[in-house]
């Protein structure tokens, strides 16, 4: 069992959480051409290294951010979306 520390609920089994993938900048709908939309929709960060991702604690429906290493699977920190994103 792997633990993920939820900023609201504390350390919980990672099975209680759902990954929503790496954070992506939201394009301006009025000033974005098709290629950039395509990029936004289909290309997510996948480099070997640390990513900032959206996660959701399913029972409490709470969304938050986590910094995780895509190679070692180490969860470096978790924080509320209102906090500064650091590496993002």
């Amino acid at each position, binding site marked *: 069992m792997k633990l993920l520390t939820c900023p609201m609920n504390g350390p919980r089994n990672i099975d209680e959480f759902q990954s929503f*993938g790496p954070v992506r900048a939201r394009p301006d709908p009025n000033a974005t051409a098709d*290629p950039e939309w*395509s990029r936004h929709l289909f*290309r997510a960060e*996948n480099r070997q290294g640390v990513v900032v991702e959206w996660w959701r604690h399913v029972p409490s429906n709470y969304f938050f951010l986590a910094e995780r290493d*895509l190679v070692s*699977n180490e969860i470096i920190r978790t924080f509320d979306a209102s906090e500064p994103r650091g590496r993002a």
Partner: protein
Amino acid sequence: MPLRLLKYGLSRDYPVSGDIPATPALKPAYDVVIIGGGGHGLSCAHHLAKYHGIKSVAVLEKGYLAGGNTARNTTTIRSNYITPEGIAFYKEGVELFERLSQELDFNVMFSQRGQLTLAHTEATMRSFHMRAEMGKHMGTRTEVVDQKGVEELCPLINMDYGGALEILGGLWHADGGTARHDAVAWGYAAQASRRGVEIHQRTEVQGFEVVGDRVQAVKTNRGRVACGQVLIATGGMNYDVALMAGVELPIRCYPLQAMVTQPLKPWLHTLVSSVSLHTYLVQSSRGEVVIGGGSDPYQLYSTRSTLDMKVHLAEGAVHLFPFLQGVRLLRQWAGITDMTPDYSPIMGASPLANLWLDCGWGTWGFKATPVAGKRMAQTIADGRVPDILKPFALERFETFRLLNEMGATAASH
């Protein structure tokens, strides 16, 4: 008898057939450099040498031959997809498997025993009807069977789990089968090296020399190699390798986990797959029951296994065949799958003129080993993409012409 055996062993008429030649010295240049010594890369090398007369070919493999996803997949061969483009392509793949042992002069133990996919909901049954009609239209053997049909095809199956997730019917794909994955890779490697292809193991690509819109050379841990054409066929590492050339692919990597039981007498005579349980089973010719395939629920570059996923796979298997509950597991493993947004591969051109892609094979690559190699070899030899591969182009994401095969891919949704 021992004397005759000895005589046979020493006879000049039957020389010892060499395995794959040892890794030779790296030449300064090749007409074609194939990155990735797995099934797809070796298949492409074979087709280049045999059918296109291109013999100055180097296959560069970071580890050992076919040690990545070629060794880790669960050997399902089928063409019961849902898009006409997908079915046409995979159908050719199944047909190539049907005569692969002859083509390679090597027994790949292809067993066309059929695949049975189970439905536990009415919604799945409706999608099966659509897949069956598409399959028939495209000339494959795919049909919907009812509960009685499931019991006839697979008499040992547990039709209802005490009321929960009852089996309502299935999709019967008589063209489906399985083959020995190592034999496929070794067969292609032996044929290719016999025709002059060089296979360089322990040769890691570390970068590309790009000048204008062409790859001038590939940089490896054993030196620089100039290249006419380059193919990327590196399975779980496709995103990373393409990125070194400045090409960002719409790929996210997830581990896919599988396992096998101890050997049992033959009892499972078809491939069985359940969409709702995310579990599929096939009995290998050694008698082991191969159980796949659980995708991890978040991105990761790792081949570690997790107890959670193994328990999940075991639960699915025991649901379908309760008598498996006392059976022991022999091995378990994971591979890194390069998942695309639409569950279809990315084949064909890249933004660089002489860099070709055979990527995005996610959880569905083994069945396409012969056909992807054949069609990519044709692409490289002709310098243009054949019609059958055009729908799989990288540009489809920019033009929003996706090939959605998510519903026809059992592993991870």
